């Protein structure tokens, strides 16, 4: 069968083929936008679907509460709270772990699973092996992150120090849990799979080891549909207060879930900001290219209309042309985005979130969204040009276009023209003749620079955060937490350990901070006012000492959560001991990028708690090289519950984050390159098309190829150079948006851009410009000098 196309469609195909370079360049920009859109949306969809399915299948709880110890009978009272659907009590024990051949301190969390069947709530998904045998005394299931980090398999042996007593454990399985999709040690800043692990153990065995027989210290519940969560929480708090309850909290405040939600929120931001930039640039490029095409085809359009083609058909012809470009871009972008999305999901699964499976979804809806968004951007960008094509009367169209009108430029009016030779004047006047186009071109190129800077920003930001957090603020080598509040005398004992050079104690207490109708549940930290290890920092990141008699809050906590100012009185509800509620003045606001904190002087906090010199933990400085000795010594001390070594944490963090940074760098470089090249190359081609006759005339007059290249590429060079500082501003702006969008209680990105970021941003412009310049230079060699003399424009 012979395929027959309407003549207009044939023309369309040939036009497209003729300007294939430009078509590809624009399609590449659309591809960039669609790829980020598809990547973010599919990853978002996949993670959300996977999360929801995982939560539902494994009965993730809706309310969580931690307490000191309550007899099992209290559970009945909790179950009786209206709205509670299912409730399960657990034993939860912070432990130290020992893994053969690994000397660093490991903190573990042991959670009980019922002996009489699978957990009612927060069930675990077995990846390998089996769950614990009912009433077994020493079997445990490991979280998969920990098992993988240490290459532990069912059958391997480890040990845990539970309540000061060493217990040998046998690994029987490896699992993931909806409660620990994101795993991080309490108080730690980053996940560290080697030094923190969650383990599940039979209820009876754990209770026996932890002195919790017939009792529980952790409870979770699901609620009936339509229940007010806050009401249940209030009732729980009332019931659990006498048992050392530290406040129940809803699922949205559950740490793993909250982190996951934040990450998903950021993906949505990515799915909006970046595609918007790309599609905006693509719309501009299509406008420029189609305008030029219409200008070149004036006569053809006039003839078609003279033959009787309607406005609609001709307008449709150009819209079709644009749509072909869009379809190419969306097709390629969807493929690339799906690839990126799968890659990103894998990186998430590998480094951050642990799900039993990943439902990677390429929702057709996403492709339709991409298509509609791109087509809308592209068509709106070309509409003016297309209307111009459709409006032309045949007689008008067959007349040549009136010559372009130029005027002397600002530079000349202020008397600088004598510094400019004619070619340079041409450059200046070309730019000044169509200032809007020049501005948009500069902005388009600048976007490439900005995107590149955003892509490269993260590494510098992370370095900066780590530096502030660990070299300015939390400078201890090791932080210890004690099993319970302890006399400050213990610090002397620690200081006397060989290898320990300095010790600072701290007291922390769970509390609810309230101001007007804002509240936040958080630990109150009592630190040393003139401590050298753990310090708070002011806005300029200079250490400030915490004054006596009040609290100092980190900026996010003060400004965004509690909305307090220095001088305001904060209500503090201490969830420990006598559970006092006190009014305390806010004395200052400090800067912190990771987490949020409320600091007091240790002595002031002790006073609030009506106690003497009591500490709950200590910061240690250790002589380099003596770490294993110190770890071993501390490991043996029953009062020491957990240890976090900063150096190891930083190293493992970089190992984790490295893949992310690399991934984003790759993606952003590809995309910034696509925009940079798309804009510069198209501008160059349009300039060549518009100025071709002029340049050929100059060649005839004896100008060399280099001299006419100066005129053509000089204009581009001026625009590209102008785009560098503008691009840096765009980069600063985009990073600013990112900082705003990603601001959360968990972390805030610092607004720091390194000289490397700026250099990379400039480099993407320079490379795109050189590449486009080279391609156009080759075209200049093909200018037809003879034809230009015989034709009228």
């Amino acid at each position, binding site marked *: 069968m012979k395929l027959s196309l309407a003549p207009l469609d044939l023309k369309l195909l040939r036009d497209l083929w003729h300007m294939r370079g430009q078509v590809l360049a624009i399609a590449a920009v659309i591809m960039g936008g669609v790829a980020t859109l598809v990547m973010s949306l599919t990853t978002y969809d996949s993670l959300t679907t996977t999360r929801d399915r995982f939560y539902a299948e494994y009965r993730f709880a809706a309310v969580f509460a931690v307490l000191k110890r309550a007899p099992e009978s209290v559970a009945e009272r909790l179950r009786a709270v209206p709205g509670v659907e299912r409730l399960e009590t657990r034993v939860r024990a912070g432990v130290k772990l020992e893994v053969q051949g690994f000397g660093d301190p490991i903190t573990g969390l042991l959670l009980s699973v019922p002996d009489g069947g699978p957990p009612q709530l927060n069930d675990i998904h077995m990846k390998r092996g089996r769950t614990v045998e009912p009433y077994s005394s020493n079997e445990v299931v490991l979280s998969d992150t920990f098992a993988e980090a240490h290459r532990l398999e069912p059958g391997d042996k480890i040990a845990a120090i539970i309540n000061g007593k060493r217990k040998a454990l046998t690994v029987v399985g490896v699992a993931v849990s909806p409660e620990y999709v994101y795993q991080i040690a309490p108080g730690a800043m980053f996940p560290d799979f080697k030094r923190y692990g969650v383990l599940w153990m039979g209820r009876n065995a754990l209770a026996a080891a932890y002195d919790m027989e017939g009792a529980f210290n952790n409870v979770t519940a699901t609620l009936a549909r339509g229940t007010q969560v806050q009401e249940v929480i209030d009732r729980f708090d009332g019931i659990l207060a006498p048992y050392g309850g530290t406040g129940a909290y809803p699922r949205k405040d559950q740490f793993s879930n909250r982190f996951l939600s934040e990450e998903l929120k950021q993906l949505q931001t990515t799915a909006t900001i970046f595609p918007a930039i790309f599609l905006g640039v693509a719309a501009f490029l299509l406008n420029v290219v189609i305008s030029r095409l219409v200008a070149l085809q004036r006569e053809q359009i006039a003839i078609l209309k003279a033959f009787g083609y309607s406005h609609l058909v001709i307008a449709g012809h150009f819209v079709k042309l644009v749509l072909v470009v869009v379809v190419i871009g969306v097709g390629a972008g969807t493929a690339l985005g799906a690839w990126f999305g799968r890659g990103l999901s894998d990186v998430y699964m590998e480094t951050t979130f642990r799900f039993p499976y990943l439902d990677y979804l390429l929702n057709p809806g996403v492709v339709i969204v991409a298509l509609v968004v791109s087509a809308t951007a592209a068509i709106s960008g070309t509409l003016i040009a297309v209307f111009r094509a459709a409006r032309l009367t045949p007689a008008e169209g067959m007349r040549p276009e*009136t*010559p*372009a*009108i*130029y*005027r*002397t430029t600002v530079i000349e009016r202020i008397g600088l023209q004598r510094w400019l*030779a*004619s*070619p340079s*004047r*041409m450059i200046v*006047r*070309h730019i000044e*003749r169509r200032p809007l186009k020049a501005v948009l071109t500069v902005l388009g190129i600048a976007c490439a620079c900005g995107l590149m800077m955003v892509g490269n920003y993260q590494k510098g930001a992370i370095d900066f955060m780590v530096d502030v957090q660990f070299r300015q603020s939390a400078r201890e080598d090791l932080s210890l937490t004690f099993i319970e509040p302890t006399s400050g005398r213990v610090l002397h004992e620690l200081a006397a350990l060989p290898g320990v050079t300095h010790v600072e104690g701290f007291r922390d207490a769970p509390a609810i901070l309230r101001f007007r109708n804002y509240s936040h549940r958080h630990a109150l930290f009592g630190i040393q006012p003139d401590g050298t290890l753990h310090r708070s920092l002011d806005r300029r990141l200079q250490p400030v000492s915490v004054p006596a008699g009040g609290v100092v809050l980190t900026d996010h906590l003060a400004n965004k959560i509690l909305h307090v100012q220095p001088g305001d009185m904060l209500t503090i509800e201490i969830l420990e001991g006598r559970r006092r509620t006190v009014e305390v003045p806010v004395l200052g606001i400090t800067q912190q990028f990771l987490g949020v904190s409320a600091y007091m002087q240790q002595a002031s906090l002790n006073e609030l708690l009506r106690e003497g010199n009591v500490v709950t933990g200590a910061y240690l400085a250790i002589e380099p090289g003596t770490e294993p000795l110190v770890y071993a010594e501390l490991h043996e001390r029953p009062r020491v519950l957990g240890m976090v070594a900063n150096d190891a944490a930083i190293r493992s963090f970089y190992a984790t984050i490295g893949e992310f940074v690399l991934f984003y760098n790759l993606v952003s470089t590809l995309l910034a390159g696509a925009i940079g090249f798309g804009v510069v190359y198209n501008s160059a081609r349009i300039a060549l098309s518009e100025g071709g*006759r*002029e340049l050929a*005339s*100059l*060649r*005839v*007059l*004896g*100008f*060399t*190829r280099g*001299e006419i290249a100066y005129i053509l590429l000089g204009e581009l060079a001026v625009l590209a150079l102008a785009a560098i500082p503008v691009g840096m501003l765009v980069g600063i702006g985009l990073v600013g948006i990112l900082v705003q969008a990603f601001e959360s209680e968990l972390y805030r990105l610092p607004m720091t851009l390194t000289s490397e970021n700026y250099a990379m941003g400039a480099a993407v412009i320079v490379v795109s410009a050189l590449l486009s310049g080279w391609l156009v230079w080759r075209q200049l060699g093909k200018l037809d*000098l*003879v034809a*230009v*003399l*015989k*034709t*009228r*424009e």
Partner: protein
Amino acid sequence: MDAVERNELVFRARGLTKIYRMGEVEVPALRGIDLELYAGEMVVLLGPSGSGKSTLLNILGGLDTPTAGDVYYLDHNLTAAGDRDLTLFRRDHVGFVFQFYNLIPSLTARENVAVVTEISPAPMRPEEALTLVGLGERLDHFPAQLSGGEQQRVAIARAIAKNPAVLLCDEPTGALDSQTGVVVLEAIERVNRELGTLTVLITHNAGIAEMADRVIRLSDGHVIESRTNAVKKPAHELSW
């Protein structure tokens, strides 16, 4: 050759042949042309379209190369020259005037001339060249602000401002009405007379041929006639 004055020989062509290859078809444009052009001459190349006159002019001006035969400019063999040498040749020795002016729209009249004088070894001042063509008053106008005849005179000023050895004009009045055309021809005539520039003018208009020292008629790629006008008619007496 039967020219009256025997000045210095500027161009000498022997057996000039040009064949264009259009896909699978060969189109001969010049079929073995012999030609000599002398300094100070005003030569009109006359012929219908397709006779090869533009091809000949392009080869003389270094815009195109022949398929066979030789062209010498003074003692330089243009046939053997590469792109770089031809560019230099055009730059230093040839002035072009085209049917559609080919001015740079972004440059004023003065600057359109300056664009050439800036790269010439021994140019006249742009103002001088524009005064010569009667545009001394319109120096700072952009092409869009000038009439067709004025634009063409700017093109002539641009062509002669470098003091070229040869002025090549391809249908300089082709896009103009006869009244304006005469003004343009007067400018060319004046340049030829006052500067003594060898001027080669292409036209298919036999009326214009009367202003020449010598008329060379082309047809089908051959020179079919070369005659010297006994009486040279001033441009202002021409009409068509």
